């Protein structure tokens, strides 16, 4: 079956069996390997992507269901060389260790801040309660999202309407 969807701002097409999962379409057909697979019972959330801005488990969605939808994966968070506030927050607050759950966490964080620019810790923990992490104990993930919230608020105060961005972090600190 032919599928067409918008992925990270670009129209992407494919020809897949109905049974192909969205996560597999992204990873195998589109070679966007930042979205991960961690379980087989829709329990862990490392496959999280945004569909029309809302976080969903891409392992529990067929590629054919995503036709005509707008998908954001982790690869779509940065604007060119500029990292998003959420990416900068995860780096600044040591919100990742092995990195496997990180794309999903960042996308949920992004979607949360889009709807709720100043969430409480409780609201953050609730929002990411569908995403498992084994390395961090969640403490610094919460801090990372709070960091991003502050950065976004500051950027909005400086330049209303322009999303917060951060400089390139490439191999330094």
């Amino acid at each position, binding site marked *: 079956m032919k599928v067409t969807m918008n992925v990270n701002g670009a129209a992407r097409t494919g020809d897949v069996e109905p*049974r192909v*999962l969205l996560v597999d379409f992204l990873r195998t057909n589109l070679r966007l390997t930042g979205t991960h697979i961690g379980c087989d019972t829709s329990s862990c959330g490392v496959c999280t992507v945004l569909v029309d801005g809302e*976080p969903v488990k891409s392992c529990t*969605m067929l590629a*054919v269901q995503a036709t005509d939808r707008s998908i954001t994966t982790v690869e779509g968070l940065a604007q060119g060389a500029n990292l998003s506030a959420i990416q900068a927050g995860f780096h600044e607050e040591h919100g990742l260790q092995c990195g496997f759950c990180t794309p999903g966490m960042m996308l949920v964080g992004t979607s949360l801040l889009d709807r709720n620019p100043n969430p409480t810790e409780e609201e953050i923990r609730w929002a990411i309660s569908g995403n498992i992490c084994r390395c961090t104990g969640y403490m610094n993930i919460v801090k990372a999202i709070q960091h991003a919230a502050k950065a976004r608020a500051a950027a909005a105060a400086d330049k209303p309407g322009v999303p917060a961005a951060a400089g390139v972090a490439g191999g330094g600190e």
Partner: protein
Amino acid sequence: MFPAAFDYRAPTSLDEALSILKQHGDEAKVMAGGQSLIPLLKLRFSRPELVVDIARIPDMNAIKRDDGHVAIGALARHVDIEHSKELAAAAPMMLEAARWIADPLVRNRGTLVGSICHADPAGDWGSVLLALGGDVVARSESGERVIHAPDFFKGPFETALKPDEVVTEVRIPAAAGHSGGAYLKLERRVGDFATAAVAVQVMLEGDRIETAGIGLTAVGPHNIKATHAEQHLRGKAPTDEVIAEAARMAADAAEPKDDVRGSAAYKKDVVRVFVQRGLKSAVARAKEVGA
């Protein structure tokens, strides 16, 4: 972890969907959000020949107030219920229950109707419908019928639906007067199925309980309506003793099994404790209405 192969149709009208089910209902599975079906497909526990995706049928996701009830469309998601103004006014207990469904990611895709059609005895919405006196509207090429909630749930993963039928909406009576409800759930962690859960709804008339609805989750072959407990409450003042007795009767109505989540005795007692707490909350909320 990939499903076995299946054919796929995505009808763009209800008539088209009904026509497909008339021909292929026996080998087909209807899919809305897919949050119950896809996991089964992936483990190959379910191997339908055809999946009928109804998500492209327009006008099926609305939650709207209509003539004494709120109609929840087949494609209305759990998250839509969580944020529904209509339900906040008409049946606020549903917003509380919505937050207990699975996890935030599943709630962005899964639907109430899909969930009740899946009819997992550990599904939350079934108990809510039983407590609120909801109705299920089913359509086929032959016509439409309205199934009262107690008649809908037949057994584990078994409903009153025929293979050629699709549920188009669920109707929740809009609460009248001093009504209040509560949903309490014991889960081992977010996203787990309930060890036990209860949905409670009361309507007060003066200082007495006029009607009560109690639905039990994960403690029987399907969601259970605790009718004896409901009858016990009717016409009585909601004293601690009356509530405690109703809670005991509700626990008696439960038929849980021993498993990794706990013994049957444990689950019955959780039902008792939760019905007790739930009734107290429901009464307090009912008193607050219009206060």
